[in-house]
């Protein structure tokens, strides 16, 4: 099963602006505006990484995510992978 991990924290500059987390990704030079649950996903994954079901279990305690297959989590992970902020291992 695919393991997902967040990009290394030293590759990011982060600012918190009201409801948004603004992330500057140093390798790409791209600025991302993140809202919940994206920052929470990055924090939960960490650099060690985890599988989607494990991530879902971790986040489900705090968020309404739906079930792991049909809910929004796979889509959110796909967005973060496309942004370069999460990588599949």
């Amino acid at each position: 099963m695919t393991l997902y991990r967040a990009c290394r924290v030293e590759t990011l500059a982060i600012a918190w602006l009201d409801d948004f987390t603004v992330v500057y990704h140093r390798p790409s030079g791209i600025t991302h505006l993140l809202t919940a649950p994206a920052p929470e996903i990055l924090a939960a994954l960490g650099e060690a990484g985890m599988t989607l079901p494990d991530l879902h279990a971790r986040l489900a305690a705090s968020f309404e995510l739906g079930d792991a297959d049909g809910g929004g989590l796979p889509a959110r992970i796909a967005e973060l992978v496309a942004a370069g902020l999460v990588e599949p291992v």
Partner: protein
Amino acid sequence: MRHAFSVRIGPVGFRVGSDWRAPIAQLADLYAGYPAPQDGVPDFTVRLFAARPWRRVVRPSVMIGGDYVLPEAAPLPLAQGLLAAEMGMNLQMALGQRRYLLLHASAVERDGRALLMTGQSGAGKSTLAALLSRRGWRLMGDEFALLDPATGLVHAFPRLVSLKNQAIGVVERAAPEARFGPLLAGTPKGDIRHLVPDAAAVAAMDRPARPALLLFPSFGFDPAERVVPPSEAFVRLTQASTNYVALGERGFDALTGLVQAIPARAIDYPDTDSAIAQVEAAWAAS
């Protein structure tokens, strides 16, 4: 080139070369009170040239060149040569400026604190800056505010104030004693007339100011005002900056720092009297 003029506007030096005398003579007249570039070395060069040698004299049309160019830019008639020069200078700033984060905003200063006004073309940022400069504010610039990532201070860039269409009459009536350039009718942006910044603005242009308030004015609506949250201000300013991406993390730090440090408000206004009152009220509350 046959004719040339050099000038320093705020921290930026320009050299404008031209195939024709007239635009250079107008620049020299309107920028008469400005200094030359630091150490005589310009940061940017603009060239006004004829597409073909005979176009210097036959239906003369002005191509805009320089260190940075837009390949698809259409030439302007010679009667609009002054506009071509100003567009060329703006273009160098927009595409080439790397030291400062460039915000497409007007800026005025009072008591060492800067008010920044940004918005789309027609929002009234040039008009409001021009009017405020007649009411005890120091004009820092009507087009670009230069945010220094190292200090968080805004540097002045008081080029000629570009007034368009109805704004021309508004400012002419409000400042009959001011100096204006020629009326440039029928340009791609409508009628344009340049206002010469007053002597105090030029004399103080090397004095930066600490940003204190960010306004997003909109002309043509009933009076209204709302707080703009930092995240929205951040997004709108990245769109209003021509070099945010080019500056990389310096731009990110400068802009997130700015929107966290100062309040931002959107003001809708039906006429300039109302706008001035709303701006002063917002300033007093900041």
